[in-house]
């Protein structure tokens, strides 16, 4: 594994959006080597915030700090060697093979006179094997299933070899099994390879199960942030998502999960199912 320097990413009094601001006065820093999940109801501004952290959008006020300097003042190619982005629903040109797609991640490391180096080749190979896509390398991306395709896109941002990786809803529209595989891959990138990941997630239980740090947003403002054990509470789910839910602790993983209370009651619990412990808020 290539050694990646520790990178500090911080959002400082940030207001951003399109013509009109959508995110207001956001303040937080991202822990290195951790998986941070941005969650919130539809339209709360979590994707907008991520886009501003990836310099797709400019701040209206405040700033994003990457390695002690304003991210939006740094040359974009320089930033691309520090921070990678996987946008929501990326498009692969028809006919592009997986290897060619992953090779695009090397763009910020190349120049007119340095077109394709041994490091580029090694980075692509490493990204393919980390995402378990080596066997798919010569197939066209458009011929793959949703989960395989998403692994290839993750391989592309990995080939970029940046300390920070931002992902916008990488698990949306995927089967639960595929979601779990992808989130395990992302967790291992953070914990075993020291990458810093910021992920916009839709699934609350997935976020609670996999994230080291949760940031909850509502109406463009940060509502709560912290370890899932601290902030994945009944009150927060009610106030941020307007969701009435029980918070349970899974006896196997020790992770929290929520079950909406407005579901039909089942009177006789099956005997072989371990009963989750109800966590009182």
């Amino acid at each position, binding site marked *: 594994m290539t050694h990646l320097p520790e990178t500090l990413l911080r959002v400082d009094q940030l207001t951003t959006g399109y013509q009109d601001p959508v995110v207001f006065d956001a303040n937080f820093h991202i822990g290195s080597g951790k998986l941070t999940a941005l969650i919130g109801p539809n339209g709360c501004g979590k994707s907008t915030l991520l*886009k501003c952290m*990836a*310099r*797709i959008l400019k701040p209206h006020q405040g700033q994003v700090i990457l390695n002690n300097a304003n991210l939006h003042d740094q040359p*974009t*190619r*320089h*930033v*691309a*060697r520090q921070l*990678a*982005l*996987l*946008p929501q629903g*990326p*498009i*692969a*040109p*028809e*006919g*592009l*093979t997986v*290897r*060619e797609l992953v*090779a*695009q*991640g090397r*763009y*910020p490391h*190349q120049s*007119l006179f340095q077109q*394709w180096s041994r490091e580029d*080749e090694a980075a692509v190979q490493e990204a393919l094997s980390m995402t378990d896509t080596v066997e798919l390398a010569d197939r066209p991306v458009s011929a793959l299933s949703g989960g395989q395709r998403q692994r290839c896109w993750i391989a592309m*941002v990995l080939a*970029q070899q940046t300390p920070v990786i931002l992902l916008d809803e990488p698990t949306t529209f995927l089967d639960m099994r595929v979601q779990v595989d992808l989130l395990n891959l992302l967790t291992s990138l953070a914990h075993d390879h020291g990458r810093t990941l910021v992920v916009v997630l839709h699934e609350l239980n997935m976020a609670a199960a996999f994230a080291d740090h949760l940031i909850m947003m509502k109406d463009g403002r940060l509502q709560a942030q912290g370890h899932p054990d601290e902030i994945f509470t009944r009150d927060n789910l009610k106030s941020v998502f307007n969701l009435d839910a029980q918070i349970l602790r899974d006896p196997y993983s020790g992770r929290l999960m929520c079950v909406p209370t407005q579901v039909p009651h089942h009177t006789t619990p099956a005997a072989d199912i371990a009963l989750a412990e109800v966590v009182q808020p």
Partner: protein
Amino acid sequence: MNRTQAYSASGLLMGLGIVLVAMVWHLSVGAKSLPFGTVLEAFLHFDEGQFNHIIVRDLRLPRALIAALVGASLAVAGALMQGVTRNPLADPALLGLMAGASLAAVLALSVFDLQSQTLLPVIAAVGALLAAILVWTVASRAPGGATPLSLTLSGAALSAFFAAIISVLHLLDQQTFDALRGWLVGSVAGRDLSELIWSLPWMLIGLAAAIVLAPSVTALSMGDEQAAGLGIPITRRKAQLLLCVVVLTASSVAMAGPLGFIGLVIPHLVRLFIGSDYRWIIPYSALFGAAYLLGVDVIARLVVRPQEIATGLITAMLGAPLLIYLVRSRLN
């Protein structure tokens, strides 16, 4: 360098070989057919006393060079347009450049009563540039600014408008039209080297820029956000690429009139063989475009000998079935 790249690099050499063969074939065809050997001799052992050598070098070579350069320029311009707009139907004509060049030529000859056609290349290039500026101005006033979509839409609208004006002028002034008929469908005939000198630097700059910028076209074809994430300055790079398209198209129109179809068909043909990475699509489009227009121009001079058909008619006649074939084979 991995295997596919080595393959592509040797493929490029092969493509260059095909262009050279097409060039020799092109030089051998004409009012008087010459054997390939004589054509090669005219370059390798030039003999001033040999009339055939003079024919090849002074009369036929300019036409062959123009066909090769125009073919390469239009194919590259089309590939760039398709990549930047992510629209497989995009080609240089879509930005209104071809129609602008045609309108300028027609106006010059009918309304301003220009007597000779020697200034036609310059007028056509100016027309193409003015059309580009007009299309850009209209598109940049759309909400969201000059995006590829608004540029394509305003280009299509203005093309239709220019075509309508040309038709009106046609009805009013039949005579000018007879004089311009050959030029308006596109032709590489009757140009000499002095005219090529004007367009050549622009074409070479445009082609070189396209090859240098090609890797970022692949990134742009994956969507703006992905490209921005890879460190590409989106707005600036798109402006550079569109400028490249305008330069290549305007200098081609100046040499050969509004030749259609090459910019549309050649990039698709290239994709069938080498895939979707613009690092390779751009140089291959240049080679295939050059070989295609050379071949088409040979056919244009062969079918009704000793007369010839305007090259622009053959590009469309061959291009249309080729495109239909491509559509079918891609759908399968």
